[in-house]
């Protein structure tokens, strides 16, 4: 599993309200949520981002409420993965359970600049900055069973698939 995309940088403590403001939560339609993704943190983001782009954030990304709308909005906006110095605990689980791959790296934030293209290799566990001579940054690789989960679009659809197989 590899992700290649332009970097969008955000700071520390980006909370779930910055990811998807509570005023838009009347819907759980993912496309509708995606239109307001990161709106309060950077209003230009959703207009200028392209499919496959990558969010690079500081400490404690996704803190605040336990709402699953936050990873759903990011995923539906077309972000391929999120790299942050650290994630809020509940966001971490929700992200994988909704099928959004996320990676922890304390180093990348100060090395990569906004707009640079990076390649995240989830199999080996490294991130390279395209065009940079720096050594790749190490991250925890995503084991196969978790890659399957992401590819099926999240925990419940993954389970539905697995459950079917179990009963066949």
């Amino acid at each position: 599993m590899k992700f290649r995309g332009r970097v969008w940088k955000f700071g520390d403590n980006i909370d779930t309200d910055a990811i998807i403001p509570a005023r838009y939560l009347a819907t759980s339609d993912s496309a509708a949520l995606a239109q307001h993704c990161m709106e309060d943190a950077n209003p230009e983001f959703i207009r200028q981002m392209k499919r496959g782009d990558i969010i690079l954030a500081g400490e404690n990304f996704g803190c605040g409420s336990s709402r699953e709308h936050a990873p759903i909005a990011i995923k539906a906006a077309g972000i391929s993965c999120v790299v942050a110095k650290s994630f809020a605990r509940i966001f971490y689980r929700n992200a994988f359970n909704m099928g959004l791959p996320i990676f922890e790296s304390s180093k990348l934030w100060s090395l990569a600049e906004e707009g640079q293209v990076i390649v995240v290799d989830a199999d080996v566990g490294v991130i390279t900055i395209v065009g940079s001579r720096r050594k790749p940054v190490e991250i925890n690789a995503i084991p196969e069973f978790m890659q399957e989960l992401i590819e099926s679009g999240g925990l419940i659809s993954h389970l539905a698939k697995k459950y079917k197989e179990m009963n066949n």
Partner: protein
Amino acid sequence: MTITEKILASHAGIKEVKPGMLINAKIDIALGNDITAPIAIQEFQKAGGSKVFDKNKVVLIPDHFTPNKDINSAQQCKALRDFAKEQDITHYYEVGRMGIEHVLLPEEGIVLPGDLVIGADSHTCTYGALAAFSTGVGSTDLAAAMLTGELWFKAPETMKIILHGNMREWVSGKDLILAIIGRIGVDGALYKAMEFFGEAIKKLTMADRFTIANMAIEAGAKNGIFAFDEVSRSYVEKRAKREYAIYESDHDASYCEVMELNVSEIEPQVAFPHLPSNVRGITKVGEIHIDQALIGSCTNGRIEDLRIAAKVLKGRTVAPYVRLIIIPATQEIYRQAIEEGLVEIFLSANAAISTPTCGACLGGHMGVLAEGERAIATTNRNFVGRMGHPKSEIYLSNPAVAAASAILGRIASPDEL
């Protein structure tokens, strides 16, 4: 490896687990209650589930809004009951047999040492007192566990907490964990396992250990855990109906942090509104009048807690205009409290005694606070609005302080009686 890493590794079928690793592990017990399980049941059905992975390993407890508080809660409990019936769940406990989940499961021998337990309730970490790995998850995770008997985890780092010395009079496990949270803050152990060590641990009763593990989540921890010893052995031996495994941390296990605490320096602690970390020693509390005192919950609703409360309340009565509500955590504890004459003492002290329920702890029913009211409670959370009106206040303490406060009408130590 630490005990947490060993339990995770064995349940994932791998040799070694390191902090930060993502693993897929087998679940021994999956727990849900009347608030979280109905959502999980829906997700379970959405995923095409028709049968739970093992009817002996899914535990469903209607304890939060029971006996049914209103029509909504009745509907939720019914959803839980219908599912339990349909799936022929072994460990479903109806009102009248029911107790607060985190007290009931160890008491019934459902959770045993070495187990990997998940529960759709944040205080699932309580079972760490039994040398088990247990942690709170969301309803979707519970659905997944009910379906396949497995769940993914990110292995936590472990923080070593060493407790030295001897506890003073009126000091209990509650005061130790409050003092720890006061020191490290509500995010002091974020993501981490808290493993408790030291000679002070050996003298702690199981009740004290459950209280400490229960509140690990209040420091942000994923789990809290104690090593298996003689105290846990004698608790488990008479309850276990199946085999269990004992894991121990290696001497060279690695810890991300070490914290030491001399318990002889700790006096009874009170957590001021609105965070469990906002603690002061009882002698530094000042004059704080209360409207209600609550003794109960998964933190301090055990028989040991009721005995301490009775010791303080014996021959005394609750202050005028103050309500003292006592909630034994399980039917068994309730019965014991009657047999030991504790209920008699509570009644003579003018306390209200309730059937087991979470009720007042989460501001659900059985003791909700009005605007401007103040309560002292033996529970685990004093967040804004937790027990009622957003402008009410909760002070957390041990049962001895809660009982003394009920008598004097202000937050007080039993020494002031």
